[in-house]
Structure formats: structure tokens, C-alpha cells
């Protein structure tokens, strides 16, 4: 149930950069007369990056959100099927869970949980049993399943809404859910309150709209090593290694298995010549399961893609030489989650035009928002993995080595550790 208060597009962001530039940003100015004011120094990539980071430290996570927004929270007693329906009805692909007995936040329910669930049933039972089970299966039990198949539990990381945005960004990179709930304590009740969920796209869009410095990020994605690029080696028979790919004839289930095992969220679909023809994403699994039956997982990718909504906007590609600034320009413009890097078919030195044309459209790499965010925040932060065998984020943070176990009590410890860590480095005042 959305609540509305009048607000203008720009004002939906925490502050209105173009009209009220904060004093710490010498470059940000009220006008767009970049070219007509020669005194303004053009920033280097590194300088721009540093200013953006300063900006992120000056803002809180809460500033990212509009005056009014909608939040779907699910009770963790809810049956998975009902939860899915609710999410579909409201057009969200994830939701914070709520433990109504303890009146506290109980983790995030995301597409990866669903994928783990599918994985579990595939290994343990038949579709029919699975379908029957899913009717009664409650969200709170997903953790048991995830323990059973040894994947990280529903991410429990969260941040206080008034903590600096920079801190939230770091956690955002670390959590495998790619989203971070903002949790506050209510004065009247003394209980937790889920305020909203910070997503990578939201944060990046906030930067793109409010930081003029993003136009100075002129280095190319490739040179910054943002993204994952094909790097075939004799040790691996995958010609696109380390990128997992599929063809139109691959079964959906096999792709779901890749999602689960590798902790990835998208698989490029290539043809025999290595040209990218589509991209299958974890959210597509939701669309597929919307149709009801888990048999849908036996479909080929081609069949599954044909069931995408008609108004699907299409997969976005970019050439290998795109700059980071251009990615921010794109983020300002439309909602993206990842970009497929394809060969633009420009002839290299000593290459015939014919050969170059042959290469056009071939898969070169994949760029996710995590990659972009990690570069902006600083590459010293590990990306949280979601795959089997990956070290669970929270264990990682708490400095432990035990796998797959991250009891709730550890969460506070983990957060405290991060905070201490950050404070020691003087990244934000305590």
C-alpha cells in the first residue's frame, strides 16, 4: 500500500544537488556550463572517485530514499507460495522477513533463496512432492534447507539508517543478497523496525544523480578491471572461463544449478559462434515459477525466454571500451542490473575487416552493479559469494573459519567488527 506525498523527481533524493551543492564539493556547481567556465579544473579519475567517496561519507543511507516509498515485509511464518504471490503482485523480487514472535528482523528473502529451494527439492524429492511441499513450506524453514545444501543462510546483514552511506555500501558489497535492509529501533516500543532496503541500483543511481563528479570517471571499464572478462585457459574447457554460459537448448534447471553453485545471478546465452543472443537472469526464474509448476524447470532456455513478459526491455550490452562515466550516465537514465560486454567488431591492427566483423557480438565479459560499486567504494572489500562452498560473509566478517554457520548472535559481533575496523581506518567518525 503506497503512501504518497508530493515530491518532485529530483527531490526524491535526500538532497537536491543541482540547487544546493554541499560545501565540501568544490566541483559541484549549480549550472551545467561545464565547457563555458574554463577555470573549472577537470578532475582526474582518481580525484573524482575520492570526491564521490567523501560525498558518500557525508550522507546517510536514509538520504537515499524518497520522502515516501513502499515497503513489503513478509512474516517469516508465511508459506513460500503465498510469499511468492505477494511479491509478484507487488512487483518486488525480494523482501525483508519479520519474526512476529520476537518482533525482530529475520533476514532477507531473495531470489537466491528460491533458487536454493529448487536445488534442494531437485536433489531430494520429485516435482510432485516438491510442489505439494512448497504449499506448506514456510519461509522460516528455508534456513534449514540452506544448511542442508551448504549455502549461506538468508543474509542477516543490516545497517542503521543514519550510519554513513559509505559504510552501508561496504556492507552492500559484502552481502550476497545484493541488498541491505535498514534497521532502526523504535523509541516507543524499543523494538526493531525495518525501514527500507538499500539496493545496489539505488545507491548507484543516487550517486549518478547527485554527484557531478561521475562525469569525470573517464577510464574504461576494461582498464579498471571492472567486471568479469573471458580469460580462457587450457585448464578449463569452458571457452568463456570464468563466465558461465548456456545455449538456447540448455535446460532451465541446469542454469538454475549454475546460479546456485556459482553464486551468480545471470548467465549469458550464446550461439555456436560465441555471439551473445540473450541473458538468463535469476529474476527470470520467478517469472517462470509464477506460471505455477516446477516442471517449468525442464523447459529449454528458449522456451523459458519466450515466457518473459512482452514488455521486457531487452538485455543491455556495451562495447569493451566503455567508460565508467558512461555507465553512470546510463544508470541515470534507466534501471539496469548488469551489462554484457560484447565485441564491437572494430578491426584491430593488422586484422582484416572481414575477420573483425566475424568477431562482432561475441561475448567478452559481464559487468554487474556489484563490480561498479566495488570500484567506487574501493577494491579492498571482498565480494560476498553465494555459491556452495563460498565462505559465508558473516563468518568471514567475524573472523571465524567455520563454514555455513552464522548464528544470529554473531551478527552483532560481525557488525561491531566492521565498525571497529572502519573506525580504526578513520573512515568515519564514531
Amino acid at each position, binding site marked *: 500500500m503506497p503512501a504518497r506525498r508530493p515530491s518532485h523527481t529530483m527531490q526524491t533524493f535526500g538532497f537536491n544537488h543541482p540547487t544546493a551543492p554541499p560545501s565540501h564539493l568544490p566541483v559541484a556547481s549549480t549550472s551545467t556550463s561545464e565547457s563555458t567556465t574554463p577555470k573549472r579544473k577537470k578532475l582526474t579519475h582518481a580525484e573524482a572517485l575520492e570526491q564521490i567517496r567523501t560525498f558518500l561519507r557525508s550522507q546517510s543511507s536514509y538520504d537515499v530514499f524518497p520522502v515516501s516509498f*513502499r515497503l513489503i515485509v513478509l512474516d517469516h511464518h508465511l508459506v513460500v507460495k503465498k510469499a511468492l504471490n505477494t511479491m509478484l503482485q507487488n512487483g518486488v523480487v525480494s523482501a525483508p522477513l519479520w519474526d*512476529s514472535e520476537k*518482533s525482530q528482523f529475520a533476514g532477507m528473502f531473495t531470489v537466491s533463496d528460491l533458487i536454493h529451494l529448487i536445488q534442494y527439492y531437485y536433489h531430494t524429492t520429485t516435482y510432485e512432492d516438491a510442489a505439494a511441499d512448497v504449499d506448506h513450506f514456510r519461509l522460516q524453514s528455508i534456513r534449514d534447507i540452506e544448511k542442508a545444501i551448504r549455502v549461506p543462510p538468508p543474509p542477516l546483514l543490516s545497517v542503521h539508517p543514519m550510519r554513513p552511506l559509505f559504510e552501508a555500501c561496504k556492507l552492500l558489497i559484502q552481502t550476497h543478497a545484493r541488498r541491505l535492509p535498514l534497521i532502526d529501533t*523504535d523509541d516507543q516500543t524499543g*523494538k526493531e523496525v525495518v525501514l527500507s532496503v538499500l539496493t545496489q541500483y539505488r545507491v548507484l543511481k543516487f550517486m549518478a544523480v547527485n554527484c557531478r563528479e561521475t562525469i569525470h570517471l573517464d577510464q574504461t571499464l576494461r582498464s579498471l578491471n571492472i567486471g568479469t572478462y573471458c580469460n580462457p585457459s587450457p585448464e578449463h574447457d569452458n571457452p568463456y572461463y570464468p563466465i558461465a554460459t548456456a545455449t538456447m537448448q540448455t535446460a532451465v534447471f541446469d542454469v538454475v544449478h549454475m546460479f546456485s553453485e556459482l553464486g551468480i545471478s545471470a548467465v549469458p546465452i550464446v550461439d555456436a559462434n560465441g555471439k551473445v543472443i540473450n541473458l538468463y537472469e535469476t529474476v527470470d526464474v520467478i517469472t517462470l515459477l509464477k506460471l505455477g509448476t516446477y516442471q517449468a524447470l525442464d523447459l529449454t532456455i528458449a522456451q523459458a525466454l*519466450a515466457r518473459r513478459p512482452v514488455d521486457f526491455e*531487452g538485455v543491455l550490452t556495451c562495447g569493451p571500451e566503455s567508460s565508467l562515466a*558512461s555507465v553512470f550516465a546510463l544508470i541515470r537514465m534507466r534501471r539496469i542490473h548488469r551489462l554484457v560486454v560484447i565485441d564491437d567488431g572494430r578491426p584491430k591492427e593488422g586484422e582484416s575487416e572481414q575477420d573483425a566483423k566475424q568477431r562482432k557480438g561475441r561475448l567478452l565479459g559481464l559487468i554487474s552493479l556489484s563490480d561498479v560499486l566495488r570500484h567506487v567504494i574501493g577494491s579492498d572489500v571482498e565480494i560476498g559469494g553465494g555459491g556452495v562452498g563460498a565462505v559465508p560473509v558473516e563468518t568471514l566478517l567475524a573472523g571465524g573459519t567455520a563454514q555455513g554457520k552464522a548464528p544470529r548472535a554473531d551478527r552483532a559481533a560481525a557488525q561491531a567488527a566492521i565498525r571497529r575496523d572502519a573506525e580504526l581506518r578513520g573512515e568515519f567518525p564514531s
Partner: protein
Amino acid sequence: MPDATRPAPPRPRPIPVHPTRPPPSLPAGQGQGSSSHHEQQGQGRSANGGTSGPPPRRGSGDHRPPAKTIRIGQYELGATLGVGSFGKVKLATHSMTGHKVAMKIINRRKIQHMDMTSRVKREIQYLKVLRHPHIIKLYEVITTSTDIIMVIEYAGQELFEYIVNKGRMEEGEARRFFQQIICAIEYCHRHKIVHRDLKPENLLLDDYLNVKIGDFGLSNIMTDGDFLKTSCGSPNYAAPEVISGKLYAGPEIDIWSCGVILYVMLCGRLPFDDEYIPKLFQKINGGIYHLPSHLSEDARALLKSMLVVDPVKRITTAGIRQSAWFQRDLPQYLQPLPQTPGLERPGQGGGQGEDASGLLGQGVSGVASTVDGATSAPDDQVSKADADTQNQGLVYVPDLGVVEPRIVDELCEKMAGFDRNSIWEALKREGDNQIKVAYQLVRDHKRMLQDTTDMRHDNEHVMESFLASSPPPWNAGLESLQQGVNRSTSIKNRATNKGSNEDESWDEEEDMEMEDIPDSNFQILDSSLHGKFDENGEPFPPYDVPHLQSQSLTSQEDAVRAAHQAVAAQRISGRATKSSKGKWHFGIRSRSPPIEVMHEIYNTLQVLGMQWKRKQCFDGPWDQDGRPIRETPPGMTREQRQKEKTNEEKQNQSLFFVETRCKIDNVVIRMDLQLYRVDGSNYLVDFRNVGYYRSNNDPDDYSLYRRSSNATDYTVAESLESRRSSAEGIGAATSPVRREINSNMNAGVGGVSETIEGKIKEVCSPFLFLEVACRLIVELASA
């Protein structure tokens, strides 16, 4: 609902109505493969051509006379003009005057079956309200036991066919059509009606080539606070905000469609067109179209200002009126009407910059309800009319000028329930009132009729059909006209909001294209768009561009078919989601008598160990220590009843308005329960988060809250109570319906703050409140 006055069953349509129809251009004469009836029309038209003069009146021989004449009332039924999902549209002739009309015959069973009664009612309501020379008129509604028959104005041809037959028009001719369309649209917007599905198929032409806008089946009265959420219309003509499913406020979407129509008239093809819907949507959203070189500068400027992607920046009808291209040769009867007091705020309009607010101000003026004042007989007043007029003499009112007694006469005649003196008084009173609005409406109407005498031969016929119509129900909706003024501001705010506060759906920049970003080559992977691959992974058309020429015919057909299916699927799915989306209330609905509902709530609260507490605003016949409703004697005495009636407002509030408390851990949750009447026999129990306080008592001792003796609790509670009761006064002023919406919204936010009651509460968490409310609902539902 299919078009009412479409003259014939299906025929080939060269203008792609939706993107799957291939030909992008409109060669003249393509539509001539249709029935002989249309050929005849087409030839007749082209011979006459343009604006020069009216074509000869068509003989009645156009339609085959039915073997046996069926009569409905005074009308003889003729040929079937069209068949829709609810019934037929037939041509009919009035037996006495020989007037041709169209009859939309709607089968009652069918609409009941499809739960469409409200939609039909809506359509009828719209048509009844609209009186304009360029809008299809509803003459009367005949109801039989099986059917609802709408007798509507007959216009024989679609503007669509006309364009098909003629190809692109000269600017002068297009201008004439355009002026008529814009004036009709302006009129609609003034009356708070947005057409929402403007396209050449909905623009009909009468025998004199005058535009008549029809098919209001899809339109929706622009109600304050309610965006037009239903996505409808043909994609090619739909505004970007419509196709991208954003919440949109209204008038500006018609402007876009008019822009597309103008483009089609001037260029003979669609500005936005593509075989594939996603591409088409992309073009519309990006505002990508080409202006051919043959267009004049003025026409280009006008088109550019209408086809602006950002609805806020789009030109308004007022702006169009000021454009040079529009003003040329504007017939006198289409000159702007004087402003009615109820529609305008003083000091508004004028400059282009102000127009956006100006139009919206006009746009929201209401028309929704009819004045229902037929309680006293008006006849005795009418007899006095002449004498009274004499007595009044010449009266000058600042905002009306000299009051014409003739119009006052008419007002007296038509406004049942108002006597002559009160009308005069209302006219003389300062400020706006509904009588003044009515006066101006009648005056405008008269002026429009008078203007016919000054018109050129060509335009005379515009009025001919207008004059022939039944008198307009001009006094419809006066009350809402008044309300409309106050609403305009909020709509404006919402319009600029553009739904940007939707979760995870930030607004996208619309004035720049992805391809324009420097140092990049972002592209949408063509092969990932819909309809490019079949289920076997075989491409429909090859995705490699160089091979496009060698594309086989079959694959092209396949693609078209697939696209068709996609559109059909989209339509079906769109409908499915629409019907599945019920009206959401946070609370419980019940059809039981209100007192039983409250009794049930009382019992349930007891079961759950929640406390029942009367609200303090109540001073009725109940005892002061908060004894529950069920304790009241069911058989009240007559005096009590009488007393109750006198104090009804207050009592009703308190009778069905209680507070409950319950404890989770050490937190006491305070919640208001209030019963509202939704409609007829439906009641809604609404829950409102009043707030929390922490209690130091043993958390397990729920019984505390059943007994009303705990002192510590009450000190806190009473102090809250007193703060609250001061807020009550504000709340009580609003109407019950309004409050229902408000409190529902509050519940929706989860009581983040009680904005309506205002100023009292700080932000508080919705979670515990929701938990308690859910417990109560679950228990009530299972009881």
C-alpha cells in the same frame, strides 16, 4: 466497448492501429477495397475535397431496409452498424422527424455477467454530461427488461477512413479538423473528463465532415486523488506515461494523442511505429519521430510542443489555442468561451508558463453528480417568473456583467428546487456559487447557438445537428464543479510526481537516449527482445542485420503472427491482472448489521485478552465506566431513539468507535477500531495505530488489561487520551467517506505517522500494530 457509430463491420485498415500491423505509410485509396457503401462515401468526399463545401447529404438508401421494421419507442431500427462484446449498434430513424440515430443496444445479462454494470453506467454518465458540437451526443436511454438502449448521435464515417482514402491532408484541411478536435477535448477537460483513447477510429465525421468524438467507453472521470491507473488505448497513440504504466493524471495524455492524430493527418503516417512492441514503446518513450520537410514552420512547432515526452512540459489546450498554427482561420463558434467562476481561480492563465496549472485547474472541474434537488414542485415559481423579472430590472454583477433575465427564466424552469428569489440572490452574492456556474453554462450554450447565424455556410451544419439535439442536462454536476477548484493544486503536485516514489522504480531520464552517451556504445541486445526467437530457439527474423534482406517470407509472417500473439497475450494478461486486483481495505468487511459486528469484535477482543475501551468523545446514553455496546438494551425507548437522532453525528461516531489495547512483551499497543459504512449494507472495520507505551508490569499478566483498574497504565493512557481528544475535533470535521480513505492510508503506511490527525504523533513503528491487527483479523475470521 466497441464504437457506437461505426458504420460497417470489419474492413481492412491500413493505418496500423497497433504495432503489429505492418505498413508504416498510408497510400491513398487503400481503403477502397471495402464495401460499396464506403466506396461511395469515399468518392463523394474526394470529389468535394477539403474545406470548400459540404458534400451532398446522403440518401437514406445507404442502408438496406430490413424485411420487417422493428420499432423501439419512436425509432425504426435499421441496419446493424457494428457488433461489440455487449451487444449491437444499430442505425435507427425517428419515425416522426426522420432523424437518423445510432442505437447502442447493451444486453443486460451480458454486462451483469461480466460485472460491467458500473462501466456502462459510467459511459452513460459521461455522454449525458457532454454537450458539444464535436462530441457524439446521447439523446436518451431506453431501459427494457433485457437491454439498455442508448440512443446516440449518428455520424457515418471515421476520420480514419477519410485519411485512408485521401492520404495526407493539406494543412488547411487538417487545421479545420484539428481545431474541432482540440475544442472538443478542451471542453471535456473542463468537465473533468479525459478521453484516454483518442485515435482516428474514435473520431467520427458527420455528413458535413465535422468531427464528432465518440467512444467514451474507456474514459474515466478524473477524480481527485485517484490516478487513472488503467492502461488502455492503442499503443501508437498512447502517451509515454501511459505505456510505461506510470500513474498519470489525465489531460496531458489526450494532448499527446491529439499530437499523434495531427501528425497522421499532416503526414499520412504514424509518428511512432514499429512491428515490435518493445521497439515501439522505446520510440514513444524516447519521443523519437521524424518531421517531414513539407510541414510548415508553425505546424512543426506545434507538433514538437505536443509530442513532448515529459507530460509536465507538454503543451496544454490553452497553449495550443495560442499557437499561430491553430489560430489561423479559427471559426468564431470555436473561440474560447468566457470563464465560469467555478472553473477558474482569479488571476490565472495567460502566459505559457502558467498554462500547465491553468489547464489542470480547468481540468479538474467536476461533473460527477447531478443536482438532486427535485424535492419541491417548481411550477408555482415559474408562473411568477415574468413579474419577478420585471421587478428586478437591470442587475449588474461584477463577475457576470448585466444579468439577462431571459437566462434567469430558464434557470428557474430547469433548476427544480430553487425558487426565483434564491436564484437572484445567489447571482448577486459575492464569490462563486453553483447558481452562477449554472448561469454561465446556460449563457455559453446560448451564445454558441447564436454564433451559428454568423457562421459561414460550411459551418452552419456544425450547428444543425447540435440544434437538433435534445436540451442538455446543463445543470448536471454543479456541486462537484465547486469542489474541483480546491482540488486542482493537489493534482498538479501529483502530476509532477510521476510515480517516482514507487519502490525500486526510479524515474528514468526521458530526454536523452542511451545511444547519446559519449564514450560508450550501449545497445539493447536485439535478439533479447520479444518475438525474436521462437520456443525452439530458432530466430524469427535473423538477428544479424546484414542478412535481413534475405529474410524469407514465412519468417516474416511468423514474426508478425508472434507479435500478434504477444499483443493478444498482453491484452489477456492485462485484463486478468485488472480483474484480480480487488479493492484493498485494511480491515474487515462485513455485511452483518453494524451492532452485530461490534458485538463480534467485543467477543473476539475478550478471547484475545484485549481491552475494550470507549472513546471519550462520546456522551450518549451509555454509562460512564466504559460498558460495552452489547450491554445496551436492544429495545431502546422512543425518546432514546429520538435523542439519538438529534445527536446522530456524534453518537454514530462513538457507538462504532472504540479503542483497544493489548500487550506484547512489555509494550502496550493502542489501537482504534472504527466501523464505517462502505455502501448499502457493507461495513468496514478499520484499524488505526494510536501508539505504544512501555509497561513495567510483568509481561505475562495479560489480565491487567482486561480489568480496567490498573492505575499506572491509566495515568499514561489518560494523558495520551487527552492529547488525542483534541485531535478528534479535526478528524470529526471530515466526512465519513473521507475518513475511511484517510485511515486506510494510515493503516497502509502502517501508522508511520498520523498525518490526518496531525501534529500529535511522532513517527512510530507499524510492526507491532500490524501484528495485533492481524491477530484480531485472524480471530474474527475464524470465529
